[in-house]
């Protein structure tokens, strides 16, 4: 079976003034479907850049990236957008909900972009929100929601297209301990249902929960260890 994500020699250089910074310096990484991966590392180590490359938000300077066996670096911007829409769900530290839209409308956004009919959108968004315990918050706008509720809306939005992969960048970074634990619980539950989960975090407590932990320093993988080898690989 082909891996969900296969990175080979991925480099990402940034030019800062007359210096070239290697944010990613030859990353080789394979993630199988259904894995639960934590990416850790100090600030500026390149872990967010790695997540952006995997999420097709950023193009690597060099290297090969296969998503489900397809070399996605060769795709056009329009094609990459379609892949993001169908295959990848994002959860951000700052939630990134559109402030003027209600919870339900925010959740409907990826479906709107996919051209799904309004009736179906409403139905699916309602059912996802319902599952995340936000049934009574559907018509609230983000400023009427707590931080934990906002992140749950964001998770609902990330999952409503039933993606293969969820990328979470510091999903608890802006939440209190209780809400953070709740959010992590939801993400892990989604992972149990088969969605591949990659979490970038500098919270060792959260990183310790993942079944596989990749530590990055200066744009290179310093360690890649399974917490429990028995569960490390599936398929």
């Amino acid at each position, binding site marked *: 079976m082909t891996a969900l994500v296969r990175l080979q020699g991925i480099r990402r250089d940034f030019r800062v003034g007359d210096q070239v910074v290697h944010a990613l310096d030859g990353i080789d990484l394979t993630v199988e479907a259904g894995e639960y991966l934590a990416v850790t590392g100090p600030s500026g180590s390149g872990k967010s850049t790695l997540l*952006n490359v995997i999420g097709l*938000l950023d193009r690597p300077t060099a290297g090969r990236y296969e998503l489900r066996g397809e070399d996605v670096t060769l795709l056009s911007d*329009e094609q990459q957008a*379609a892949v*993001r829409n169908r295959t990848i769900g994002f959860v*951000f530290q700052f939630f990134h909900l*559109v402030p*003027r839209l209600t919870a339900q409308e925010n959740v409907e956004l990826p479906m*709107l972009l996919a051209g799904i009919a309004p009736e179906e959108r409403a139905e699916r968004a309602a059912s996802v929100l319902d599952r995340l315990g936000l049934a009574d918050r559907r018509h609230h706008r983000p400023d009427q929601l707590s931080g934990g509720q906002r992140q749950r809306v964001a998770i609902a939005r990330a999952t409503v297209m039933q993606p293969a992969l969820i990328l979470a960048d510091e999903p608890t970074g802006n939440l209190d301990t209780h809400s953070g634990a709740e959010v992590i619980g939801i993400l892990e539950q989604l992972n149990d249902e088969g969605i591949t989960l990659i979490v970038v975090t500098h919270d060792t407590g959260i990183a310790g929960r993942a079944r596989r932990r990749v530590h990055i320093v200066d744009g290179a993988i310093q360690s890649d260890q399974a917490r429990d080898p028995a569960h490390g690989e599936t398929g």
Partner: protein
Amino acid sequence: MARPGDVAAFALGALRGYRLRTLLMLVAMGIGVAAVVVLTALGEGARRYVADSFASLGTHLLIVLPGRAETRGGVPTTLMGETPRDLTLDDARALLRSRHIRRIAPISVGGSVVSWRARQRDSLVLGTSADFLAIRRWSMRRGRFLPRGELDAAEPVCVIGETVRRELFGVTPALGRWLRIGEYRFRVIGILSPTGRSIGVDTGELVIIPVASAQAIFNNPSLFRIIVEARSREDIPRAKADIIRIIRERHQGEEDVTVVTQDAVLATFDRIFRALTLAVGGIAAISLGVAGILIMNVMLVAVTQRRPEIGLLKALGAAPRTILLLFLTEAALLSSAGAGLGLVVGQAGSWAVRLGFPVLPAHAPWWASLAGVLVAVGTGTLFSLLPARRAARLDPVAALARR
């Protein structure tokens, strides 16, 4: 790809989300379009004012003036050194030989003191014939117009305007009274209806008598002019040719009259006012260009303001094309609404002008309103292309980064 209805709804939602910005742009567009509508309405109103004035003169008219002038519809001027032959009643009568001419009215005018009992006033005395009433499309308020008969019958009858009647007779019935004009006495047989405007003449001030009588009073056998009505619009050029031919025959081969067609004069005025309308419309359209640039600036600010939203949409799978479409739709909706607003304000403004100046039929021509709206929507959308492209090309990583 997102559905068109959803794109429109999303753009509308964004417009509602930034009310001040939306309002400012609506006002900018509205002022531009309203300016186009009102200014062209004024230009068109002026044009129609002149056109209506000519129309009230009667239709397919030709005016024969003594003296030859090199002119095409302008004001005739006698050529230097040439003394024109008189235009006589016989000349006028001869014109009726042309089968392209329906009727004629010779005109002889002068000022004279008009009096009844102790009251007197200076008045314009116009000598003409029975057909004059029909040619000028005037009507009688009371009594009848000059009697039909030989042109050189100097009957002592007169028709007076409403102002003359009021000032001389007041509440006394005027019909049948004898009016003194200069050294002669004329019986009042009719009173003219006050007509609206009519080029250069206030019908109320007139005293009309048979042309032969006028020639006697003013002691001048030459006519001031002859008004000729052609049988139809198509007959005008042939009528003109006939007039010149007939007069030349009678004047020993000298072509010493000028024939002015009403059409030529009207066409000249028409051209002038159309050019004027276009010019003011064009100037107003510049304000639409300014509004377009304003829209571009505000949209650029909006793109900067909404970077996180754009980044998010990209992360959720919006293609650059979709982002472009979203912002262009926003601009198009905005400029359409602004144009609609401007159209309403402009029509209201034109209406106010008509209310304030009833003589000016200030209706914006449909093409000007259409052009105003199209230019508004066009510039609004066009000038948003740059900001929309900037949004579409935004790097999602940078856009999502909170700084």
